[in-house]
């Protein structure tokens, strides 16, 4: 486990260093990046198997006790999310290698190394067992994302990048303040010790901490009304970058929220979370309906879908948390695939605007199929993973007799389906409205892009096929989080030698 945990964090960072050194050699640079991220991905799957069989495990960095040092905790929740997160980055990197020789692609000299650093940050954020390391991991992710977002230096990228940087810096500052507050109130920032000490605090202090971190993680997760940075900045970035961001960044925010608020038992915040979840769903879905560009529609969906995860969390019941975890697992790959397909469309139509493209279903049926599967899944139609996830969240809502939020969730689902139909009508049916040429791409690169997208679609289908076992795993992970005893014992006693 020691080796596996280290690999997921360090391998991508080493690969980033090597890729930076090999800047002038495109072939070996790409190979090194793929190998680094690939190794981390393999290690994460091995961790899933190990933890599933032998239970949660802890690595004490530098051999320090949890009160003093950094612990990395591989519990079931972490090892469920980690393999999917890393697989997404791997697939996108493959896609990026195909795409980057066109005008739409990211600058490979920067994108390779930065994706490596981002991967290391994502692994660290998912595995870490204390708040300050979580802050460092967020910073690793954010600093690389700032550059990835704006490195092409186009006018609208810089403009929306500005909002992105300011909002996230603000959230990071609040995060740091929050860490200080927590330390002042409890004398520790280790999550396992916090799970013991926060419930003993005065209810005012306790809820203050909960609300503070709800704002911090909420900004990262783009919940209403803190989402303003997202729909402007995501669509302007190169497709591959947007695909990674949409699949991962907001999800790391909601992941941290699920972990922190469930472990520390912030049940009283539930009603507020539910209200915000409802507004987030509807505002995101309505925003999507109003757009006329594929990437912008998909960006608003990111917001809307965060609402469902927040709803699962806000119910603060075993079924609700299970639903939130399941939704997270389903949503990450599906969202990424949709953006990758958006990239394919852009490549073939020369634009991602709905009004300027059309008739792609007749010319490129493959793209139509690749789009239809994740789109139906996102809208929550059976038999895809989205149906299982949405069903879990909504049935958890019915169990808690939270009627209002259930109605809102179903309504937002219809809106989502409507905006997917809008993409379908605009891009795949009708005729090509203007004569915009496809972006010239070498056959090899095109094949690589299709292969990566196909792989990702296959991945989402796998989740649907094994929905039963994924559901069971999510349920176990949710129970571990809610009781928090298992987590505390793993961290304080189970030192991994």
């Amino acid at each position: 486990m020691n080796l596996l945990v280290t690999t997921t964090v360090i391998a991508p960072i080493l690969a980033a260093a090597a890729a930076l050194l090999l800047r002038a050699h495109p072939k070996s640079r790409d190979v090194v990046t793929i190998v680094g991220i690939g190794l981390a991905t393999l290690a994460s799957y091995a961790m899933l198997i190990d933890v599933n069989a032998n239970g949660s495990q802890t690595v004490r960095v530098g051999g320090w006790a949890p009160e003093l040092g950094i612990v990395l905790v591989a519990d079931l929740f972490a090892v469920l999310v980690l393999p999917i997160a890393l697989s997404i980055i791997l697939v996108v990197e493959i896609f990026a290698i195909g795409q980057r020789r066109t005008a739409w692609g990211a600058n490979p000299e920067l994108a390779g190394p930065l994706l490596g650093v981002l991967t290391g940050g994502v692994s660290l954020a998912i595995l870490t067992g204390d708040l300050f390391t979580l802050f460092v991991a967020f910073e690793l992710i954010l600093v690389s994302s700032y550059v990835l977002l704006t490195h092409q230096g186009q006018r609208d990228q810089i403009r929306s990048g500005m909002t992105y940087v300011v909002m996230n810096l603000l959230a990071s500052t609040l995060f740091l303040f929050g860490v200080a507050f927590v330390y002042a109130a409890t004398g520790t920032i280790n999550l396992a010790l916090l799970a013991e000490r926060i419930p003993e605090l005065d209810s005012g202090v306790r809820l203050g901490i909960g609300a503070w971190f709800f704002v911090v993680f909420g900004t990262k997760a783009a919940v209403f009304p803190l989402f303003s940075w997202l729909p402007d900045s995501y669509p302007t970035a190169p497709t591959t970058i947007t695909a990674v961001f949409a699949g991962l960044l907001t999800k790391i925010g909601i992941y941290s929220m699920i972990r922190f608020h469930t472990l520390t038992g912030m049940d009283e915040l539930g009603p507020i979370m539910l209200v915000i979840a409802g507004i987030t769903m509807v505002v995101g879905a309505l925003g999507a309906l109003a757009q006329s560009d594929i990437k912008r529609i998909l960006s608003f969906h990111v917001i809307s879908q965060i609402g469902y995860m927040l709803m699962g969390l806000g119910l603060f019941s075993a079924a609700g948390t299970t639903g939130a975890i399941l939704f997270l697992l389903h949503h990450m790959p599906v969202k990424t695939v949709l953006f990758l397909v958006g990239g394919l469309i852009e490549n073939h139509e020369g634009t991602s605007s709905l009004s300027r493209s059309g008739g792609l279903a007749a010319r490129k049926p493959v793209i139509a199929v690749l789009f239809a599967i994740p789109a139906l899944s996102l809208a929550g139609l059976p038999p895809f993973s989205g149906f299982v996830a949405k069903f879990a969240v909504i049935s958890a809502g019915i169990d808690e007799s939270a009627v209002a939020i259930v109605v809102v969730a179903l309504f937002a689902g219809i809106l989502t389906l409507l905006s997917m139909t809008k993409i379908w009508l605009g891009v795949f049916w009708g005729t090509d409205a203007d004569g915009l040429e496809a972006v010239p791409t070498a056959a090899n690169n095109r094949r690589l892009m299709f292969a990566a997208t196909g792989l990702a679609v296959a991945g989402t289908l796998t989740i649907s096929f094994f929905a039963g076992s994924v559901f069971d795993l999510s349920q176990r992970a949710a129970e571990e989080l809610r009781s928090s005893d298992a987590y505390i014992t793993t961290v304080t006693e189970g030192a991994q030698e």
Partner: protein
Amino acid sequence: MIAAHSPIVRLGIRAASPLAILVGVYLLFAGHNQPGGGFAAGLVFGAVAALRTVAGLQRPINTGALVAAGTALVAVVAVAPLLWGDPMLDQQIVSAEIPLLGKVKTGSALPFDIGVTAIVVGLVLAVLDGLGARELAETSVPKPGGAK
């Protein structure tokens, strides 16, 4: 560039560089038990390099390699303890009697700090180059004797 026109600035920076580097090296070694460390040392070295850039003096050029080498060093130091079966980032401490300096204590944290220093210096210079500092310093160095 104004600094390049002024021999006082150029000379001053040239004279101050070795002293500032000495401070940086001190911080790098002091960081183990006292205020200092790789990041602080990197900032001091970065400041030296930035001043030298402005004055058009010699300084490291290959910023990418600096960052990459630093990252690689840090990552290798982090992973190395695994070879002996220890958790990552575990420290080995060495102390030795050195004439003049007395008892010196150091450890595997030192190469880690050196790596951090390299990353910081590399990034500072990369940002300066990104802002066009080098071109600015080069384009306006006046010919000795003056054209007008």
